[in-house]
């Protein structure tokens, strides 16, 4: 069958629109609440009665375990602190030793102890100074290496570790003397020590970064060869000794 105008016939599936059937017209209704339905887990679910170990003693064991761990931690800390060097040990001075006549080189200056003598009385500027011990006079040559330096610490140290600073009872011009590089200066430094320790001494020189402390400072140490008979002789001799003033030397 052909259509007028030469149009092809409509496909078979096509049909003219029909009115909406009344029977299937949507009817509005208020939503009805329904309780949520729990998803069904893939495993068995049982109520948890306690998080603790139900075995008798489990709670006590836990507490004991914590206590033991605490004790172990404290013991480890105590052990560490016991064998860790304290500040005084960790920051002890760096000692460089020599002997009389030998040049001891420190980072900033050099030391050469030339000689040592002693006396019962010291004389300076017309005044005599006696002592309850004995005077020790150390002749030393100091030389700056790179820049002007002052050697502010001079002391004697005995075998028991006691230190005796250079005496302040007389003028000690070498202490704090501004040393210029290439211009060595030699002079005598006076110390007071008990007679009993005078035969076992070493002299120390340093340029301390902190007053009265030598923490991590370079220290030059030279043992003094003094005999007991020398000490007795010095103590018995009442002739005053005058410390030699600093002078430029070679």
């Amino acid at each position, binding site marked *: 069958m052909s259509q007028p105008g030469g149009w092809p016939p409509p496909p078979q599936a096509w049909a003219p629109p029909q009115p909406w059937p009344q029977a299937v017209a949507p009817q509005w209704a208020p939503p009805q609440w329904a309780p949520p339905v729990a998803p069904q887990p893939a495993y068995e679910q049982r109520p948890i009665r306690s998080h603790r170990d139900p075995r*008798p*003693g*489990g*709670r*006590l064991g836990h*507490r004991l375990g914590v206590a033991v761990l605490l004790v172990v931690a404290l013991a480890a800390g105590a052990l560490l602190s016991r064998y860790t060097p*304290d*500040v*005084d040990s960790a*920051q002890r001075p760096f000692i460089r030793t020599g002997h009389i006549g030998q040049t001891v080189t420190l980072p900033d200056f050099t030391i050469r102890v030339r000689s040592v003598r002693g006396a019962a009385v010291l004389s300076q500027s017309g*005044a*005599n*100074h*006696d*002592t*309850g*011990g004995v005077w020790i006079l150390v002749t030393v040559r100091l030389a700056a290496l790179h820049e002007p330096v002052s050697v502010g610490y001079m*002391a004697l140290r005995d075998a028991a*570790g*006691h*230190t*005796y*600073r250079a*005496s*302040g*009872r007389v003028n000690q011009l070498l202490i704090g003397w501004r040393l210029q590089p290439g211009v060595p200066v030699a002079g005598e430094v006076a110390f*007071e*020590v*008990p007679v*009993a*320790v005078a035969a076992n001494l070493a002299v120390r020189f340093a340029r301390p970064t902190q007053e*009265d*402390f030598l*923490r991590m400072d370079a220290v030059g140490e030279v043992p003094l060869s003094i005999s007991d008979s020398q000490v007795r002789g010095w103590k018995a001799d009442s002739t005053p000794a005058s410390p030699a003033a600093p002078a430029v030397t070679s």
Partner: protein
Amino acid sequence: MASRPLAARVAALPLRWFGIGAGVLALGVSGFAGGLNPVAAPGTPQVQPSAAVDAGPVKVTVLVGRVVSDLSPIKPDEDGDRWFMVIATIEVTANDSRVTPDPLRVPHVAGLLHKKPDRVLLSRDGTDVDYLNPGMPERVAYLWEQRPDAPVPATVEVDILGETYRTNSLTGGKEWLPDDDADQPRATVQVPVQDKRT
């Protein structure tokens, strides 16, 4: 009903009970060790003149007080002032020379310019004390400048302050530092005062 094991019952006790028990135990031990005994109020011990007092790095023996009007060539700051002096024997017991130990105070003396001594002199030759050496006791004069109109006491109470070898919280190193209660003297000694005014 079967009774629970002892460990389980102990473990079930509240933690507070453990704390209370530990506290009671500590108190009991402390009581047995004398920790609950009455303690006398802290006070400064009085020592006899010429008795040595351990002040930490030094041992101090106060000998006598003295008032002098002239110590030439040492001059007071103010013309006309005089010197109040305490003479003591100082022995360094520390390992190293001590910088001018000045452990003495005379808080009840009137007319002093300063609390600390103005000068510390060596009796041996009158030189200023820069250092005192270990194992070498020295007779030392502590000088305070005093107004001329202040009364001269018959006796003087001398407080001896102490130092403790302990860790410096700044450096971590150990050194001699004033006692925790720096104003609390280690001891007090009463000595006669000699009037040596000219």
